[in-house]
């Protein structure tokens, strides 16, 4: 069964300002001796602190908290892109992060070629990736635009394609930063149906959102982050009361 477990996961960024982020200063700092304290130019930001979280099949988690509370960082840890700087993250299952729908798409390639490119990123063979095309073509309603370079697309068309590809393969675990809304009214309804189906079939859903309505609608569990720590975790209504 797909599951994610974080144990004392901490994500600590070192922000090197332009002075310290160079060899010159690194050399000077070591060779030249002590000028001020060693960490004078280095600011560490703890984006997540000692996060313990276990997600299991059936969990629909709403991730809430103010800007900068660590929601996106936590999503990136859950996706496996960030390995915690201390602590552990064990991710079991096929994760799909819908953080950047257009990731890796190449504007010089046609829509069709972009579908294959993204399919390959999902670990498909060329043949498997090509077999996604008819379904995405039908869903995105791009028609003959699928055979012209993506740079000719309007932003709405690009989004239709990106959304279509990103949701073409069913993952075990879905990570989402705010609910997606795409296109005009008719298409938005179609997209909503597609994503609802994707959610239903997924084992785990994590939705970071500022919209309490979205969290109430899609989630059965909420996690409240404050300054990189989990301050509340439990049924949605209980956690929302903590806000």
């Amino acid at each position, binding site marked *: 069964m797909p599951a994610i477990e974080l144990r004392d996961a901490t994500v600590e960024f070192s922000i090197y300002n332009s002075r310290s982020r*160079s060899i010159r200063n690194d050399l000077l700092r070591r060779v030249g001796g002590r000028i001020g304290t060693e960490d004078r130019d280095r600011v560490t930001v703890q984006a997540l602190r000692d996060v313990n979280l276990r997600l299991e099949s059936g969990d629909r988690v709403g991730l809430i908290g103010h800007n900068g509370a660590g929601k996106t960082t936590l999503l990136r840890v859950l996706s496996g892109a960030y390995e915690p*700087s201390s602590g552990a993250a064990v991710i079991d299952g096929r994760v799909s992060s819908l*953080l950047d729908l257009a990731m890796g798409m190449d504007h010089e390639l046609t829509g069709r070629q972009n579908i294959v490119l993204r399919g390959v*990123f999902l670990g498909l063979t060329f043949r498997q990736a090509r077999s996604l095309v008819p379904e995405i073509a039908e869903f995105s309603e791009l028609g003959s635009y699928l055979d012209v370079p993506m740079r000719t697309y309007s932003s709405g068309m690009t989004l239709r394609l990106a959304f279509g590809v990103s949701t073409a393969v069913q993952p075990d675990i879905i990570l989402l930063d705010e609910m997606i809304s795409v296109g005009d009214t008719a298409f938005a309804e179609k997209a909503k149906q597609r994503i609802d189906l994707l959610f239903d079939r997924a084992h785990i859903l994590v939705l970071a959102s500022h919209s309490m309505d979205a969290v109430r609608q899609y989630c059965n569990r909420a996690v409240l982050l404050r300054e990189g720590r989990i301050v509340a975790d439990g049924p949605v209504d209980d956690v929302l009361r903590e806000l």
Partner: protein
Amino acid sequence: MSALSKEMMTSALCDFREGLSNWRIWWLLGIGDIRQRYARSRLGQFWITLSMATFVCAIGSVFALLFDQPIRQFLPYVAANFVVWTLISGLVTDSCTTFIQADTYLRQEPLPKTVFAMRIIVRNLVTFAHNIIIIPIVFIVMGQWPSGTWLLAPFGLMLVLLAGFFTALLLGVLCARFRDLPQIVQNLVQVVFFITPIVWPADIVRGRAGFIVDFNPFAAFLQTVSEPLLGNYPPLSAYLMACGTTVILAAISIPLFARFRARIVYWL
């Protein structure tokens, strides 16, 4: 700074294995880079060939005069050298952006990082394939005929690519952390171009400053590919130095990559 642990080494090896097996990704990314660079131009990627041909003809004829060399031998010499040098210098300068350029992927997906080192190899190999076309043309025009020694060239090419892979890991990690390094590398590569016998014959420094050829690993890698194309056997010393350099690069880059692999994404 904590030490290199066994787990780090294991996950680095895992990264290598998965990175290499995900060949479809780095193949598409590598050729996509070339396509993007020449998108919408009429000649497309054959601009690579054309600009190389222009450069070789211009430098070849001028330097043949300067160094008082017979153009029938000198033009093929410059052509073979410069085509191989373009591969080597491309690998080195592109290595600086191995991970910097991949930030959008690395921040979202747990892709093996080796994928992006292989992308550098593919991109430069595709360019090389376009450039190599001019070598037989120059040879035929200058009335030179290929000899059996060119069968040794693929072996030299393998050495260059292997060393290029380790360089992509090494410089990729270092340049992601130290953002001044790409500029430094670029400058050094320019200097190396002048101190390596690419557009001047190696013989002219013999006896005076032979060491800049003999102890120059770039010259060694160059010779292992270009000498066989020119109908000569590369000296054994060139093979030794190229292999030695590759081993040293591996010995530095693999532990460095293993130690900082997980940190790279934090630096982007």
